[in-house]
């Protein structure tokens, strides 16, 4: 039986993520843990996260789990969700500026205020179901139609430096990189654990992903 660790660094809703993975991965033991040894012993690692960038980074640093994430990055399939995606970038402009993990070079920036699309003012936070376009084929998109809708709830978005890292985009005022991929790494701004059938499919795909 494989082990999937959900990193618990004290920032919010881990239950939905762990339950959703349990729901789709019969062959997996899902553990929610803040113990570096447990996380390092897992076959796959999921990093969720909720809240403000400053608090999330502080929690990762103080718990020592920032080092754990850096140590395991690239060594086994890793999934970052929402804030667990944003902390992978180099720097976030939230909370007057926060240094992040720099695993995915790039910036986290806030939606423009006001944000317009073709003359229509858009609401911020970006909250609700938006279509995600596959920027390229990826194992985590298996059995998910291009332009399926996923659930978003965020005011900041990631701008990775390398366009080649972008696995999925969503149009909200402009195109944003809502999923990135690298060997053994996939991260998304939307919440697969709250995105009904397609979200569960993505988690199921992650549970059997070979990392390539």
């Amino acid at each position: 039986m494989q082990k999937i660790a959900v990193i618990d660094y004290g920032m919010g809703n881990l239950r939905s993520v762990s339950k959703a993975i349990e729901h789709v991965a019969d062959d997996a033991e899902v553990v929610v843990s803040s113990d570096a040894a447990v996380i390092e012993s897992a076959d796959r690692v999921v990093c969720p996260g909720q809240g403000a960038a400053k608090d999330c980074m502080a929690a990762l640093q103080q718990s020592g789990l920032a080092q754990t994430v850096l140590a395991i990055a690239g060594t086994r399939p890793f999934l970052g969700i929402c804030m667990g995606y944003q902390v992978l970038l180099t720097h976030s402009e939230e909370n007057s500026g926060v240094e992040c993990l720099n695993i995915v070079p790039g910036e986290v920036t806030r939606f423009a205020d006001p944000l317009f699309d073709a003359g229509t003012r858009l609401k911020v936070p970006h909250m609700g179901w938006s279509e995600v376009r596959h920027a390229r084929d990826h194992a985590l998109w298996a059995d998910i139609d291009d332009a399926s809708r996923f659930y978003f709830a965020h005011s900041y978005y990631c701008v990775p430096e390398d366009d080649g890292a972008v696995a999925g985009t969503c149009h909200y005022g402009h195109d944003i990189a809502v999923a990135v991929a690298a060997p053994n790494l996939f991260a998304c701004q939307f919440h697969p654990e709250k995105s009904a059938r397609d979200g569960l499919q993505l988690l199921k795909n992650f549970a059997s992903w070979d990392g390539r």
Partner: protein
Amino acid sequence: MGLAKRIIPCLDVDAGRVVKGVKFLDIRDAGDPVNVARGYNEAGADEITFLDITASSDNRDTIVHVVEEVASEVFIPLTVGGGIRAVEDVRRLLNAGADKVGINTAAVNRPDLVREATDKVGAQCIVVALDAKSVSAPGESPRWEIFTHGGRTPTGLDAVEWAVKMAEYGAGELLLTSMDRDGTKVGFDLALTRAITEAVEIPVIASGGVGNLDHLCDGVLKGGADAVLAASIFHFGEYTIAEAKAHMAAQGIEVRV
């Protein structure tokens, strides 16, 4: 295509049971929140709102367990409101699996609670619920006041000013209920909805008065709402979520299908 307008069924929960049960879903126990939430998920609801109407403080923890159970089996966004008094209440519900927590009376009593909560858990998790009633005399320009305790207690707060203030305090979303229309089935108070949606940058959920599918469309097209919340038209099987979405789509409203 952009962001879909959301359809949100709202369920009243008393001491862990859905009250005014859901009549149409093919489920064995229409009072069980998990069954009802699962049914609405399968029916295509975009989100589910639980309103905890438990009166007794002895049963305050019950809603946390309800959220835990629902969030373990139903994988769409869950909003929970009712009885929130402190940031700790917010955290417990989020940790149980809620995505958003609605604050109403406690925000009126102490607006800083909204700021503290959003600082702690992020704006996207905090919904401020506004119960508004028309207080302008005939012939006067329209004016609405915020009420608490189910519309019984006036607060002296102007609804539009309060909405703007709550957005400034960091609320991620507003749940706007017209106390004049709630339960009437004559449609949303569109003037109120429009006044609020034009005043703030954050998403607004319209609530109170839905009696048919045109009302849902009006809330979006005339009221400017980002989401529409309804209870009885769905609970009693008058319309399905799919019918509601088809009707909205036919009016040019973007929905998730």
